[in-house]
């Protein structure tokens, strides 16, 4: 019955209630969107690589190595010797290795030279392996496998021909026109930097950097074994036994024949996320401030209604409503408005994400799930509920006092 009274009371003050509702809707939507995007960004970030025990590259700082080898961001400062890669391949503690060679691009997308082991051993998310939507891994020298976002953005399909450019800018003055590639495979979307990567073999990276005449000669003679690079950018390493991780890391960091640095991806990723923590907190604080201003609006609306509701409170008191019930009624009203605003905000964010998901992937490479229901959002819901109850306290106390002072007289 109290719920009916609270609901009908709100309906009788439609204009102010609707404006308060809209104010809360906007602020809660911002709050949920920020929290969800933060959560999804962190999830997406953390799922970029899994199952890899060590990343080995030239000494340049843990974050830098992580950024260029996993996220295709920044530039490698130095390379490691191919012999070091061969040493890692043959190491008894190591189960698999994936070589990475970076430095070229295709229309703004990074080109990565690697081996077929990449398609076998690379893991992301919950130890998910790479899958092909179309085609298969590269076989011949000028085969290329592209990530889903590359295919979608550039409208590529199997068999299309592409040319790789020197350097990593979106516009390059030096295209390797003499060595066009044919698309051999398109990977299934992963929500990781893999989607934005153009994959070729290590031999292909070596080939496109040769003078055209020399390359032509090698191809004609079928001597692709000559296309072996002397250096590569980094190596992703999977161990036979993870207990050996720290021992091997120490060994590699002290390796005498080449300057190597081995980093644990999990540790480096945590460091990187901590760097972004300030931005994350800034977004959260802004969203909470927006909510706070709306809650003040809610409180003001309820307090402003108290004067006109003096008689209504008197009627309720004569019917046997205690001051505590009057207090409860005001809190109910606040919870009703806040609850409806929270529900509508959840629906708005979900529908927006479901509708805009393709556009977000296409334009920003953001894989945001439309399912916003996570523990973080649930905690947020509880916080919003508590904040609404707190915002309702001042008007509820005012109503309580009115109820205590009620007399059977309109004066």
């Amino acid at each position, binding site marked *: 019955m109290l719920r009916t009274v609270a609901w009908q009371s709100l309906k*009788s003050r439609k204009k102010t209630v609707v404006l308060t509702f809209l104010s809360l809707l906007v602020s809660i939507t911002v709050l949920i969107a920020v929290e969800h995007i933060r959560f999804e960004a962190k999830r997406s970030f953390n799922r970029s690589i899994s199952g890899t025990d060590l990343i080995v590259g030239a000494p340049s700082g843990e974050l830098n190595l992580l950024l260029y080898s996993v996220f295709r961001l920044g530039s490698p400062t130095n390379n490691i010797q191919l012999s070091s890669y061969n040493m890692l391949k043959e190491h008894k503690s190591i189960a698999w290795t994936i070589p990475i060679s970076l430095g070229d691009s295709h229309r703004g997308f990074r080109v990565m030279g690697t081996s077929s082991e990449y398609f076998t051993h690379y893991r992301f998310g919950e130890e998910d392996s790479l899958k092909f939507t179309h085609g298969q891994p590269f076989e011949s020298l000028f085969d290329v496998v592209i990530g889903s976002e590359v295919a979608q953005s550039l409208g590529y399909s199997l068999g299309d021909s592409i040319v790789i450019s020197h350097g990593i800018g979106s516009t390059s003055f030096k295209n390797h026109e003499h060595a066009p590639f044919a698309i051999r495979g398109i990977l299934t979307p992963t929500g990781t930097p893999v989607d934005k990567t153009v994959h070729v073999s290590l031999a292909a990276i070596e080939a496109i950097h040769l003078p055209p005449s020399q390359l032509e000669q090698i191809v004609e003679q079928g001597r692709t074994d000559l296309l072996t690079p002397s250096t590569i950018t980094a190596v992703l390493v999977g161990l036979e036994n993870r207990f050996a991780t720290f021992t091997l890391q120490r060994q590699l960091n002290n390796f005498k024949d080449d300057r190597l640095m081995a980093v644990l991806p999990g540790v480096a990723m945590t460091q990187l996320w901590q760097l972004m923590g300030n931005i994350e907190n800034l977004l959260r604080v802004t969203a909470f401030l927006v909510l706070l201003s709306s809650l003040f609006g809610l409180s003001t609306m309820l307090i402003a209604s108290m004067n006109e509701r003096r008689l209504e409170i008197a*009627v309720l008191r004569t019917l046997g409503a205690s001051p505590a019930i009057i207090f409860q009624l005001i809190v109910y009203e606040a919870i009703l408005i806040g609850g409806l605003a929270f529900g509508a905000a959840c629906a708005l964010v979900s529908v927006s994400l479901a509708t805009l998901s393709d556009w977000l992937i296409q334009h920003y490479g953001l894989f945001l799930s439309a399912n916003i229901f996570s523990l973080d959002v649930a905690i947020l819901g509880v916080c919003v509920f508590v904040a609404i109850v707190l915002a309702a306290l001042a008007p509820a106390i005012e109503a309580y006092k009115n109820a205590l002072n009620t007399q*059977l007289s309109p004066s």
Partner: protein
Amino acid sequence: MQLTTPSPSPSSSNAVDVADVVYRYPSRQSAFLCDRWSLPKGQHTFLHGNSGSGKSTLLSLLSGIAQPQHGTITLNNTQLNTLTPKQQDSYRARHIGIVFQQFNLIPYLTVRQNVELASYFAKRSVDITDQLLVMLASLQLPEAILSKTVSQLSVGQQQRVAIMRALINSPQLLLIDEPTSALDANARDGFMQMLMSASQSFESTMIFVSHDPSLRQFFKHHLAVTDICRWGEEGLSC
């Protein structure tokens, strides 16, 4: 006119017993004082007095909405000041029906919801539909009125609905405060006849407060507020 006799102690045959009551408004220097007064069960009393004489204050005290700083008020053998505030609210919901002069009903609720609210606070779990239909007939109101909001009703209809709500829990005591002030003479007489008839059928004790002496004709028992209570300094007898 019959003045009720003072009674020395609460009696089981009385609906109201007031003894040595002192009530002081926080914003007022003088106190409202009632020494001894009682009202037999089932009696309908017309309580009159000028504005400011303390009629509404007396009703607030009798309904338990205002708490006297001193003295006792006993309603049907229940001493109000021995009850906790919550118990007093509950007692009021179950045993007292109140009709005001103007602000009787909650305007945004329907007639049915207004009446159900009284039943809800009295913690009655029974379906009141049949009771409502009987009361509508006796108060000459159409059934369709139940689903109308109060703001859609005329003043006369609102006052009849207020009576219906006051009687829905079959109260032992009815407190009526200037209910006819907004009605014209014809409507007032019709309303009074309905009120008397309805309250008699519920065997409720009624205290009808008004400053309009023309309403005395509807009552056998008349009383001036100043005969039983007064504004003055605490410690001085009435």
